[in-house]
């Protein structure tokens, strides 16, 4: 008889874990935002984390941005030629980058490079009792560890997104104008005519929310890591997977809300 119940048990366990984890994550974020309201503000730590999350990811962003723009121009060009619409190459590349690819790919890169490192660092601080040591000194770990990362994520992501888009547009230019037959004036003229402030705002909102999402998930997973090296490695994997999946799901919802 027990095999009949097994699927229900699995579903029930999954639902239970999902609801408990979500609740704990929301509590975690609420606590962090509660403590933002009170000084001291550790500006130096925020700057340090912007360096870690933002500045050190720039190279990866430049590389991925340029190749994304290039391949995008190449693919789009061959599709547009079929309709004789290759003059709209510029706006199609720019709009895809600004509204979709810039925020999403930049966020995935940050999740892979900085998010994982953040989880590992905070996780190691947890298992080596450094977080307890802060707490024992009557210093608030949220203020020292969590809030600077959340703020640095919210500040860094839009900037990385902007770099990604600019580099991507130039990559598209190199391929579109250099390799295929689109003229330079058509490429940038089209971008000027068809890209609105609204499009740029959509990209901005997305990258702001991704910045929070990545640092939130990474800090949470590190802060509540399991025991030992195995616990930290598990937490790191979970943080990257969960961030990546959530970025894509949240992106869909953001898009459908912002387009209506």
């Amino acid at each position, binding site marked *: 008889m027990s095999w009949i119940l097994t699927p229900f048990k699995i579903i029930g366990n999954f639902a239970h874990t999902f609801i408990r984890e979500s609740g704990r994550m929301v509590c975690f974020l609420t606590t962090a935002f509660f403590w933002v309201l009170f000084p001291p503000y550790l500006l130096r730590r925020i700057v340090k984390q912007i360096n870690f999350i933002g500045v050190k990811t720039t190279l990866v962003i430049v590389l991925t941005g340029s190749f994304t723009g290039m391949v995008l121009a190449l693919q789009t060009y061959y599709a547009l030629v079929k309709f004789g619409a290759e003059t709209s190459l510029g706006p199609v590349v720019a709009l895809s980058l600004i509204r979709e690819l810039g925020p999403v790919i930049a966020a995935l890169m940050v999740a892979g490079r900085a998010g994982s490192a953040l989880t590992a660092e905070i996780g190691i601080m947890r298992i*080596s009792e*450094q977080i307890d040591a802060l707490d*024992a*000194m009557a210093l608030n770990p949220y203020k020292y560890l969590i809030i600077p990362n959340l703020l640095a994520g919210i500040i860094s992501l839009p900037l990385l997104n902007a770099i990604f888009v600019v580099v991507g547009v130039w990559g598209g230019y190199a391929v579109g104008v250099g390799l295929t037959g689109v003229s330079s004036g058509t490429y940038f003229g089209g971008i000027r005519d068809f890209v609105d402030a609204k499009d740029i705002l959509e990209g901005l909102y997305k990258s702001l929310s991704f910045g929070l999402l990545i640092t939130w998930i990474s800090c949470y997973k590190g802060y509540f890591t399991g025991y030992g090296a195995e616990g930290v490695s598990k937490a790191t994997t979970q943080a990257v997977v969960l961030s990546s999946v959530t970025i894509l799901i949240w992106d869909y919802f953001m898009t459908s809300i912002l387009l209506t």
Partner: protein
Amino acid sequence: MIEVVDLYKSFNNHEVLRGVNLKIEKGQTLALIGGSGKGKSVLLKLIIGLTKPDRGKILINNQDISKLRGKLLKQLKQRFGIVFQGGALFDSLTVFDNVAFPLKEKTRMKESQIRDTALAELARVGLSDAESKYPAEISGGMKKRVALARCLVMKPEIVLFDEPTTGLDPLIGKAIHKLIRDCQKSLNFTALMVTHEIPAIFSLVDRVAMLYNGKIIASGTPEEIETSQDPVIHQFVHGELEGPIPIQ
């Protein structure tokens, strides 16, 4: 000074502490012995207010730390110092910055004053020449000494030690014991020390308590514990494989 009354604590249905009663007088040093993974570190963390008990009281000068919140809890925590098992030094800071950290964050001292105080504390533990090293670059014994310096720099009234000599060679272990005793003589703090150093610890502390099955099964002077006829205590203190304690 410290009084633990009927303390219970469990983690995911696993009862770690089941009614702990313990008393430490002002100025005394108490050694807490007991098997590995049986809740000694948990008890320290409860006493210092890092986690909350499920039931029971922890009185520090008749003030229940488990009921305090916010500012009062903060003030009480500042009278404590704790030396964690691995030292718990901040990896991203140098030895000097680790020791200066509590002064920078918790006091209004001037930069130069902080420097002098932290260096004096490092000199006390014999590490004046390691000030610019990072925790990853120093040995386990040095880490313990830095952790002790970081804890003493705030002049705590009560110091908790979590296995201060575990993982060190016997000579360095002895040196740490001597250092702790010297510091205690000059600073007069009350100490609670989790340790496995039997019988070495018996000549160093005022009282010994043993944690077994989530309870304090005995508490007394070192002589009383050493000569105890209770089969559990006798087996543990003399390190015998045969006896009532199951060995897993």
